[in-house]
Every structure is written in C-alpha cells, then in structure tokens.
C-alpha cells in the first residue's frame, strides 16, 4: 500500500529532492540519499603546473531516486601569487573532465612583481540525468549509471611556472601588509538534486 499522499499530493511542492550544503570544515550532513562528510580545509593551497585536486571540492555523491538534474556548486577564493596568476580549473566527474565546465582565471598582468588580484571562484555545473546513455564529458549521465557514489571534484593547474596562484587564501588582512597571519577561507560546497 502506498502513501495517501501518492494519490493526494501535497498542497504545495517543488522539484528539489534534496540539497547537500556545507562549509568545508569536516562536518557531517545527512540528507535523503545518505550521510556525507564534507572535506576539512585547513589552509591555503598553492598550485603549480601539475594538475591537482582543489581541496574542499571533492564529494562522493549518489543522487536520490527520481533525480533528473544534479547541480554541483563549489565556491571559494583564488588569488594570483605571481604575475597574472593565470590558471585553469575543471569539474571532474568520476575521473572525467566535464568539457563545458572548464574555466580560466587570471588577474591583469603588470610585470612579474605585482600580483594583487584576489577574487571569488564559483564553479558550477548541472548534470543531466534524463538521457538514455551516459556521456560523462558532456555531463550527461544515464540514471542507471549513477546508482552508487560517484566522485565530483575540481582540478586545477597554473598556466606556467611564471603565473602562479593559490586557493582559499587572503594575502592582506585588516589593513596589514601581506602576511601569513591572514585568515584562510573555508570553501563551500552545494549539491542539489532536482526531480
């Protein structure tokens, strides 16, 4: 026997099945699809010319039954630490780069000495689960292929060893000069499953 509300739907409803949202401080959050532990970001992350996982961005997620779209949103800071700090960042699903989610960031170039640029980085992509066959690179995932946890994360690298940068950092603090005492930023991760 089903629920009465299967026959008589709620007076109001929406198409959000669940939202898994948290600041990346190691907290555990339970939603309909399960319990998740957020990464614990404890400091800045310098990047170089090697591709690395961006700390705080990784989550092993399985959407609830009936999900048609999954939104992944990762919000943090990026700053140049040399020259323009040119970098590239990707969203990666189950070890496959989502082509359309690729982004590049940089400050303006002012020789090799000035690198003040600091800004918000918000990486966002909506996976389409209404397709019959999976195309990971396009972010199209057949529902039958996402019934167990898949890892979604961001990876990044610097353009070259001349243009370096870092995530989660603040160079200046309350009017004081550049200092290692400036607080770092804990990033935020939000996963939304839509029916």
């Amino acid at each position, binding site marked *: 026997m*089903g629920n009465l509300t299967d026959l008589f739907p709620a007076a109001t409803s929406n198409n959000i099945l669940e*939202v898994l*949202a948290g600041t990346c401080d190691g907290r555990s959050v339970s*939603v309909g699809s399960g319990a998740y532990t957020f990464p614990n970001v404890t400091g800045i992350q310098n990047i170089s010319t090697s591709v690395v996982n961006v700390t705080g961005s990784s989550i092993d997620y399985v959407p609830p039954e009936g999900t048609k779209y999954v939104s992944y949103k990762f919000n943090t800071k990026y700053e140049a630490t040399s020259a323009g700090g040119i970098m590239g960042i990707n969203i990666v699903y189950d070890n496959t780069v989502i082509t359309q989610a690729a982004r590049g960031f940089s400050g303006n170039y002012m020789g090799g000495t000035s690198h003040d640029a600091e800004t*918000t980085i918000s990486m966002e992509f909506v996976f389409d689960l209404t397709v019959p066959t999976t195309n990971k690179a396009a972010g199209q995932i057949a529902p039958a292929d996402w019934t167990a946890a898949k890892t979604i994360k961001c990876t990044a690298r610097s353009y070259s060893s001349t243009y370096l940068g870092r995530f989660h950092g603040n160079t*200046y*603090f309350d009017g004081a000069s550049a200092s290692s005492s400036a607080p770092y*930023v804990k990033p935020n991760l939000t996963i939304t499953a839509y029916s």
Partner: protein
Amino acid sequence: MGNLSDSFPAASGSNVLEVLTGTSDGRSVTVESGTYTLENVSTFQNLSTSYADITGSSIAYTPPVGTKHLSYEFNFMFDCIAYSGISHFKLMIDNTEVIPAYKNFASNYYSTYHHGNFPCSVFYVFDLTAASDDAANGKFSSWTSNKTIKVQGREYNSTYQSAVHYMIYYSTVGTAQTVRPNLTITAYS
C-alpha cells in the same frame, strides 16, 4: 476546508525548509519563518579604511523550527577605484566575525589604471547542530530568535580604493550604473 495534505503530509520531501531570496530593492518577502524586508540599495557604496556595513547585506533572521544548516549568500559587484582596490570583507553574526568567511578582493595592480570590476560573493553555511555555540566558526546549538547577519568591508589603505554595487562600464564606456546586490538565505533540515 484545508488541503488533505495539510493533515497527511507528503511521504517524502526535500530538506529545504525555506528560501528567502531577493534583490535588495526594499521588497518584503514572506516565508514560513516570517516576513522580511530587504534593504533598499539605491546607490553604490564607497569603502574607506574603516569597516562599514555593506549595504544590502544585513538581515535579521530566525530560522524555522527544525533547521540544521543555514546558508547565507550575498552577491555583489566590486569595483577598483584606485590601484588594485585591495579590500577586506568579513561576515558578521550578531557582531561576531565568522572567521573562516573572511575574504579579500582586488584586481591586479597598476599605478594609473583601475579597470577591475567584477562580481564577488560572501557565502557561508552555518551549522545549527553543534553541541555549543561557537559564533566565530558559524556553529550554534540553538537559534530561536533573530540574529543579524551582515557583511562589513573596508579598504586595505587609502591608496587602494574601492566601491561596491558599482558597474563602471555599462553599455557605453564611462556610463556607470548602480547594481543592486542579491541576498539568499536557505534553511535546511
């Protein structure tokens, strides 16, 4: 007569209890926990070397019963007025700074040009499942009455000047326009 589902709630639902969202134009928004009036941002705001409340960012909010996590997202435009415009922004709750949400914004440095103009956000998810209150880390064991959440900002020094809610190049170069910020509060069970 009410809806049948008022007595027999849905078998399953999302964990979103309410979303309070709006552009800061003075509108009133009613959600489950009450009616809230957003600030009316009618012009841009120059920053100084002292912390000041960022217009449009302040809300006195009480989450609905059952809230376990509460996200605050404030999106605004940042503009460099002089040099790279290095500026500091901190998230406050009832006058306590939420330290992990501290952010600097700046463009790159140039002595005469200051074209940097881009969207920025202050985003944090408060944890209401904590055993005890730790406002400096955004953790609370109880939140049953209004707490004021807001963003404060200042310039690094008087040489590196900046403004918020300002779009310097709009359509035609040199035609500036005020950009109203957006505020979104989401309560999760």
